[in-house]
């Protein structure tokens, strides 16, 4: 018998999904330009491309969230034209989005069967049947999720698994995963990979959309690279290396840019001190000093308390106890308003939900946090001053847009993030807290963000750079703090070996972190 692995690699075999010259335009952009792709049965097919290259649009056109302009989609040998993601799901083609799409207050069981509840003839829910189906699914694929648990009590990785179960319940033949590991910690990612590989063994095809090249090489059989809405190529993963793939993604080669030069900020004065910050339940007493012009990296697993620490410092959450000092005097921060007054800025983890007003013209987002600076005593705004500032940041941060009146929603992730940064620079902060600032943006834009952070620190801004990616944190930070379970686990300077930092993050052994009860 041929293993399914080999089947996937024989490209002549019957494809489960075939896209033929798929095109989609938005006002001013050709988001997809005659893209043709074939996905084989039981194949893990990575879809790579920078932000704005058309990956999301492609997904949305296939499942019917967008209406395609032209081209055809063949699923399981038949031409299909789904009118909605719900219809595509009912037909065995599921999407697992970057954002979670489960109902937090429902149980695992209720979520898995949502829209497909077993009912008696008069519509009464048959929970026993659902449970039987649930346990047979669990057994078949080796999942171990308690069916009665509420979703909001599960970890992110477990939630992803629930979404997969939801897809499997409808006998999905193809699952599209859109940056599934974006909010997973590194040990969770490994666990998630096992799940994905198991799906492949069962003959389920997967389109895996990600920015993270390591994942592509660890998982995929083939890679399709998109650039500016066009397909660059489809290649077998074992026939290429990272360099060639990056070259295809960005159309030029990227130099190795690991800057290991030691910068000295030790002599500088301490600008901010946190003393024994407690923000229940996640932050259990964290202290640190931040110097002027320093980039302080804070890393740790998801759930280690990084985001909650950031929220405490910015007054989003009220701290239970602890002190915050700025410039050697103790300050009280009860709300973001107080924090801003004291020169603290927060670039939040969730750019779209917390960072931006998506329906605003972009210039309104740039000036929003410092609108006082653009208005006179009566509160009347000066459009000329606003435009002046927009122009300044467009140049300084290389934000790409054609008009300041463009709606923020329509910009790429990288550009959106730059707008958030511009918004906060406008408040002239002395401390800039960045929480997962490069999450969900492409390689090039990440590099640009790093460059911006370095430049800001040269200019005297102090940056707290929070990231769950250890290599990224080592790359950018002058000093690294590792948080584990709400406490400071270790401190390193930038020359510390990656393995040491990694060990501190994981707490010695990786297995400990995989809480299994």
């Amino acid at each position, binding site marked *: 018998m041929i293993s399914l692995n080999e089947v996937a690699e024989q490209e002549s075999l019957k494809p489960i999904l075939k896209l033929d010259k798929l095109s989609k335009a938005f006002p001013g952009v050709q988001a997809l330009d005659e893209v043709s792709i074939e996905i084989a049965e039981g194949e893990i097919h990575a879809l790579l491309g920078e932000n704005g290259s058309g990956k999301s649009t492609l997904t949305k056109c296939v499942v019917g969230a967008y*209406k395609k302009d032209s081209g055809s989609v063949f699923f399981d040998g038949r031409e299909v034209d789904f009118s909605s993601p719900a219809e595509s799901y009912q037909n065995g083609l599921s999407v697992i989005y970057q954002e979670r799409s489960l109902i937090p207050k429902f149980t695992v069981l209720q979520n898995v069967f949502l829209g497909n509840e077993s009912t008696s003839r008069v519509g009464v829910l048959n929970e026993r049947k659902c449970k039987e189906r649930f346990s047979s699914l669990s057994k078949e694929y080796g999942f171990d999720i308690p069916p009665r648990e509420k979703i909001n009590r599960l970890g992110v990785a477990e939630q992803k698994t629930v979404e997969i179960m939801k897809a499997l319940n409808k006998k999905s033949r193809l699952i599209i995963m859109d940056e599934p590991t974006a909010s997973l910690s590194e040990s969770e990612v490994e666990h998630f990979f096992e799940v994905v590989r198991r799906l492949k063994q069962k003959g389920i095809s997967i389109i895996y959309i990600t920015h993270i090249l390591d994942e592509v090489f660890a998982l995929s059989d083939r890679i399709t690279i998109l650039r500016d809405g066009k397909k660059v190529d489809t290649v077998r993963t074992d026939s290429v290396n990272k360099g060639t793939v990056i070259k295809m993604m960005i159309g030029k080669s990227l130099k190795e840019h690991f800057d290991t030069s030691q910068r000295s900020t030790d002599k500088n004065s301490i600008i901010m001190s946190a003393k024994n910050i407690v923000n229940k339940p996640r932050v259990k007493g964290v202290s640190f000093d931040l110097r002027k012009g320093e980039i302080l990296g804070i890393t740790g697993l998801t759930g280690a308390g990084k985001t909650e620490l950031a929220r405490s410092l*910015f007054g*989003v959450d009220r701290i239970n106890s602890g002190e915050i000092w700025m410039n050697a005097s103790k300050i009280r921060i009860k709300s*973001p*308003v107080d*924090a*801003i007054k004291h020169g603290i800025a*927060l670039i*939040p983890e969730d750019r779209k*939900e*917390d*960072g*931006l*007003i*998506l*329906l*605003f013209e972009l210039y*309104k987002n740039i000036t*929003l*946090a410092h*609108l*006082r600076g653009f*208005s006179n005593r*009566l*509160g*009347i*705004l000066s459009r000329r001053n606003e435009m002046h500032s927009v122009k300044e940041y467009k140049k300084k941060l290389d934000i790409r847009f054609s008009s300041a009146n463009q709606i923020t929603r329509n910009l790429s992730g990288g550009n959106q993030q730059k707008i958030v940064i511009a*918004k906060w620079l406008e*408040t002239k902060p002395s401390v800039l807290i960045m929480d997962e600032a490069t999450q969900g943006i492409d390689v090039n834009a990440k590099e640009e963000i790093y460059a911006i952070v370095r430049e800001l620190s040269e200019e005297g801004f102090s940056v707290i750079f929070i990231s769950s990616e250890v290599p990224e944190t080592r790359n950018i930070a002058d000093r690294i703090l590792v948080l584990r379970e709400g406490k400071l686990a270790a401190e390193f300077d930038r020359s510390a070996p990656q393995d040491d930092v990694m060990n501190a993050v994981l707490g010695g052994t990786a297995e400990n972190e995989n809480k299994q009860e």
Partner: protein
Amino acid sequence: MKTNRSDTVSLSTLLSQVLRFINRFKIITAFLVVAVFISISTPFFLSWNNILNIFRQTSIVGIMAIGSTFVIIGGGFDISVGSLLALTAAMAVGLQSYMAWPFAIIVVIAVGAGFGLINGLLSSKIRIPAIIATLGTMTIIRGVVYMYTGGYPLYVDSPGFAFIGSGRIGSIPFPIILLLIMVAFWQFILVKTRLGRYTCAIGGNKEASRLSGIKVDFYMTMTFVIGGSMAAVSGIVYAARLLSVTPLAGQGYELDAIASAVIGGTSVAGGEGSVFRTLIGALLLTMITNAFNLLGIHLYIQYVFKGLVILAAVGFDSYSKAKA
């Protein structure tokens, strides 16, 4: 075959362009279409007197709708303004037994703003959903109106006060001038000031606004204060026009005010809207009523039709947004 196909393609692009235009200027388009249609069916419609009449009839709901626009853009809802019109109108009349009418007006506007403040605090601080909070105050205020009037109509006779309702500057009735001034003023506030920008920001994304250092509760409350004050101004015009106020005054006005705002394209989800377009929405509503009266169509049917217009306006907006 081939030419046939390109014909349909160009036809469909033309159609989509027309649709895009309608979508962009839909309220103006609807306004023009209805106006042309009505003026064909009844020539009197376009007479100068009738046009002034439509504007004058719009003035009371129109002024109230300015407030509703702010509240809805900020992500709230206020259904208490109809009752508030009754209370402020009754007080504007009643207080004149104790003080000169200009002072009565000042007190009345303060009362309107005060109830707006209560609505705002209930919804922003106590966090009662706005529609429920104002349902409560709507009932309370109506009760207060009955208590204040003792259940009987109040009358006043004061030429200075009457000018607000039926005076003219040149040939233009004063309520129309007041309406246009209010629209211009509040449109300016909405587009050109911090207050306006913050209102849109909060309606667009409350959490992001909070994290941008905006005092969300304060500005949300302010939208209700504006709503209450505008209800009071409309109450004053109402009282000055009729020179008498019954305890039943203003019933259903809140619905017309909200309808004007949403027909004018104010997003019921918050974040988007324009005072100017609300005026057009209000005019459209009055125009339809006016035309139906001219055509002698029964009042009952007018209700049904008005409801359909509201559903069509919001439905078109929501549906095209979901498709985009």
